[in-house]
C-alpha cells in the first residue's frame, strides 16, 4: 500500500464516534477550531524515520531535519506534532497550532495529547481500512459492471439462429470466459443463396474487446454484402478497421462462403486458427495465408477452396480450446484437436464430444482461461429427399403444396439458351415475340417480360452458375380455360434448396446492413399471377403463369 499520510483530522472526519468536538481541547477554555491539514508525507521523508526513533509529541520549531514534511508543518504554523502510530506504522499526525494564550504547551498538555494519540491511532487505522475496503469494493463492482456490459455486447451480436440449409447440419457452441474475451462468429446470407461463415477473435478482453468485435462484425457484414470473394471481404475490412482500432489490438478472422448446392467452401483467413476439414481420406487443416485484421493497411488475403462431399465436416474454433491448460500446465494443442476431429464422425455431436474431452483434459477445477467458440458444419451423408421431388414456393408464402400447373397445357414453343450473362434479354425478346398473338395488354406483357428476364437470369447465374455449356430451357404453354400463358424455365440447379422469395428489406439495404441486391425472386413473384417451382436431382424449373383475362392489373387469387 502506498503510504499516504494524512493529518489526523482528515482521517477522523469520517468517524463520528471519535469526532474531535467530543475531545476536550488540551488547555484552552474555549474550543479551538479543528481544521484538516492536507499534508502528504512521503514514505522516505526523514520525518518518518525521526518519529520511529522518537515517539511522542515534538516541537516542530525545534526540528532541524531536512524534510519537506517539516517545512510544510512549519509553514502551517504547527507548534506541536504528535505521531499517530498503529502497529509500528505512522498513520497520521495530530497537529497543534500555537496555544491561544500564547504560552507554551505544558508537560500536562503533552501527556494529555499522548493519551489521546494512543487511543485515537487504532480508531484512525480502522477508519482508514474501512475506507480502503469501500474503495476496493467499488472498484470490484465497476469491473463486474464492465464485464456484464462486455458480455451483453458480445451475446447480443452473436446470431440468434442457425442457418437452415437442407442437406447441411450446423451447430455452434460459445462459452465466454470470466473476463470475457473477444470471440465472435456470424452467418451472412448472400443474395445468391450462398452462406458466409465468420469466426473471429479480438485480442484483449472486456469492454474494449467487445467494442472492437462489434465494429469488426459490422464492417464484415457490410463488406460481405457487397463483395463476392472472401479475400476481398477481409482486405476491405482490414482497410476500414486499421485507422480505428486501438493500438496493439487486432482481430484474427476466418471468412468462408459455402455454396450449399455444390458443397464448395471458398475461404480466406486473417491469421485465425486453421479450420479442420474431415473428409473420407482423413483430416486436413484448411490453410490460407493472411495477416490479422487491424495490424497494417494494404494487406491481401489468399483465397482457397475445398469441396465438401457428402458426410464431410468442417470445424471452426477459437484459441480458447487449443490453449486450455491441464493441471500440469500442458496445453490442449492443435495435434490433439486434429486427432479428435479425425476420430469423430462429425456433425452436431462433435461439439459435446470436444467439450467432454476438454473437461477430461483440464480437470474439474479448471478456470476457463479464454472464450471457447466452436462452429461445426457438416454435409449430410445422404442428400435430403424433397417431398415428391418437388418444391413449391407459394405466393405470399402459402404452405400449400403444388407442383407445376401447366405441364398438360399445349406447348406454344420452346427454345434453349446458353448460360452467358446477358442472354436473359434474348429470352425476354423471344417469349414476347411468341405470345404476340395472345394480345396481352401492354402492361401485362411488360410484367411477363420482366419476370422471364429475371427468372432466366437466376437460371444462368445461380442454377447453371454461369457455365456457358449448360443450357437454359424455356417452354411457353397456353391454356384456354382459364385463358392463361405459362412460361417454364429450367436450369441445371436441381437437388438444391430453393430460396424463399421473401420481401427484401429496403431499409436494411439503404442502411448498408444488407446487400443492395437480392430483388430477382421478389420481383418475379410480384410480376406474375402464379409462380411455381419444381426440382429433381438435376433440373430446377420455375413456372410463371399470367392470366389473360381480368384486366391489365387484376391478379386473380389462385
Amino acid at each position, binding site marked *: 500500500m502506498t503510504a499516504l499520510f494524512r493529518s489526523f483530522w482528515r482521517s477522523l472526519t469520517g468517524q463520528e464516534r471519535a469526532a474531535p468536538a467530543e475531545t476536550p481541547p488540551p488547555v484552552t477554555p474555549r474550543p479551538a477550531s479543528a481544521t484538516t491539514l492536507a499534508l502528504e508525507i512521503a514514505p522516505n521523508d526523514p520525518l518518518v524515520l525521526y518519529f520511529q526513533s522518537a515517539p511522542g509529541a515534538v516541537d516542530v520549531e525545534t526540528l532541524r531535519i531536512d524534510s519537506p514534511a517539516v517545512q510544510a508543518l512549519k509553514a502551517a504554523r504547527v507548534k506541536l506534532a504528535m505521531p499517530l502510530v498503529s502497529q509500528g506504522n505512522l498513520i497520521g499526525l495530530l497537529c497543534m497550532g500555537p496555544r491561544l494564550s500564547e504560552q507554551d504547551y505544558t508537560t500536562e498538555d503533552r501527556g494529555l495529547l499522548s493519551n489521546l494519540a494512543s487511543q485515537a491511532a487504532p480508531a484512525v487505522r480502522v477508519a482508514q481500512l474501512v475506507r480502503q475496503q469501500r474503495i476496493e469494493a467499488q472498484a470490484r463492482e465497476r469491473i463486474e459492471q464492465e464485464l456484464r456490459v462486455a458480455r451483453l455486447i458480445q451475446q447480443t451480436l452473436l446470431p440468434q439462429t442457425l442457418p437452415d440449409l437442407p442437406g447441411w447440419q450446423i451447430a455452434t457452441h460459445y462459452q465466454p470466459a470470466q473476463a470475457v474475451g473477444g470471440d465472435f462468429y456470424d452467418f451472412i446470407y448472400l443474395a445468391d443463396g450462398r452462406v458466409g461463415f465468420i469466426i473471429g477473435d479480438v485480442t484483449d478482453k472486456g469492454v474494449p474487446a467487445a467494442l472492437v468485435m462489434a465494429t469488426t462484425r459490422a464492417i464484415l457484414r457490410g463488406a460481405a454484402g457487397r463483395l463476392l470473394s472472401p479475400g476481398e471481404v477481409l482486405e476491405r475490412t482490414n482497410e476500414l478497421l486499421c485507422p480505428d482500432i486501438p493500438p496493439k489490438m487486432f482481430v484474427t478472422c476466418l471468412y468462408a462462403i459455402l455454396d450449399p448446392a455444390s458443397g464448395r467452401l471458398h475461404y480466406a483467413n486473417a491469421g485465425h486458427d486453421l479450420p479442420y476439414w474431415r473428409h473420407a481420406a482423413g483430416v486436413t487443416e484448411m490453410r490460407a495465408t493472411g495477416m490479422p485484421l487491424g495490424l497494417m493497411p494494404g494487406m491481401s488475403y489468399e483465397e482457397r477452396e475445398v469441396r465438401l462431399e457428402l458426410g464431410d465436416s468442417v470445424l471452426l474454433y477459437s484459441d480458447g480450446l487449443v490453449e486450455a491448460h491441464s493441471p500440469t500446465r500442458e496445453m490442449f494443442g492443435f495435434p490433439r484437436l486434429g486427432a479428435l476431429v479425425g476420430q469423430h464422425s462429425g456433425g452436431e455431436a462433435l461439439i459435446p464430444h470436444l467439450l467432454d474431452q476438454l473437461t477430461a483434459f483440464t480437470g474439474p477445477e479448471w478456470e476457463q482461461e479464454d472464450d471457447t467458440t466452436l462452429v461445426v458444419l457438416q454435409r449430410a451423408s445422404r442428400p435430403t429427399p424433397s417431398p415428391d421431388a418437388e418444391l413449391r414456393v407459394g405466393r405470399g408464402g402459402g404452405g400449400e403444396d403444388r407442383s407445376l400447373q401447366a405441364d398438360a397445357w399445349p406447348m406454344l414453343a420452346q427454345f434453349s439458351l446458353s448460360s452467358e*450473362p*446477358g442472354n*436473359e*434479354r434474348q429470352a425476354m425478346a423471344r417469349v414476347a415475340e411468341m405470345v404476340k398473338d395472345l394480345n396481352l395488354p401492354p*402492361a401485362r406483357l*411488360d*410484367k411477363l417480360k*420482366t419476370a422471364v*428476364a*429475371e427468372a432466366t*437470369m437466376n437460371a444462368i447465374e445461380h442454377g447453371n452458375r454461369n457455365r456457358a455449356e449448360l443450357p437454359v430451357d424455356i417452354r411457353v404453354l397456353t391454356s384456354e380455360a382459364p385463358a392463361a400463358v405459362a412460361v417454364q424455365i429450367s436450369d441445371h440447379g436441381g437437388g438444391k434448396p430453393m430460396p424463399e422469395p421473401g420481401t*427484401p428489406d*429496403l431499409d436494411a*439495404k*439503404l*442502411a*448498408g446492413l444488407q*446487400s*443492395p*441486391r*437480392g*430483388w*430477382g425472386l*421478389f*420481383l418475379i413473384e*410480384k410480376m406474375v399471377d402464379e409462380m411455381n417451382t419444381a426440382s429433381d436431382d438435376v433440373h430446377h424449373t420455375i413456372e410463371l403463369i399470367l392470366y389473360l383475362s381480368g384486366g391489365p392489373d387484376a391478379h386473380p387469387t389462385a
Partner: protein
Amino acid sequence: MPTQLLETKVRRVTDGPAVIDLRGEIDGSVDEALNAAYTEAEGYQPSAILLNFSGVEYIDSTGIALIVGLLARARKGGRRLLTCGLSPHYTEIFQITRLSDFMTIFADEASALANSK
C-alpha cells in the same frame, strides 16, 4: 457483354437539382457509369439530384440494386433523389420495391423541376 449499355449526361438546372439524363439499359454492368454520373452530379453540390429515366428502356433487378446504392449515397450526403420519365411499368416496379417511398417519382422533367424547389 455489350459495351456502353448506358449513356449518362449530367447537367445543372439553375436554382434547381442536378439532372442525370440516362439513356439505354440499367443492369448490374453499368455500375461504374451510373456511379460516376452521380459523383459528377454531386460536384454541383445540389440539394437534390434528378434521375431522368426517359431514355431508359430496360431496368432489371441488378439495376434496381444500383439505384438502391444511389439512394444510400444520397441519404448519406443529405440529398434528395428524384426521378422522372419512368414508364408506367417501371413506376410500378419502383412502387413494388418501395423505392418510391424514398424517392419522389415525377411524370416528366418539367413537373420535377416545378416541385423540387
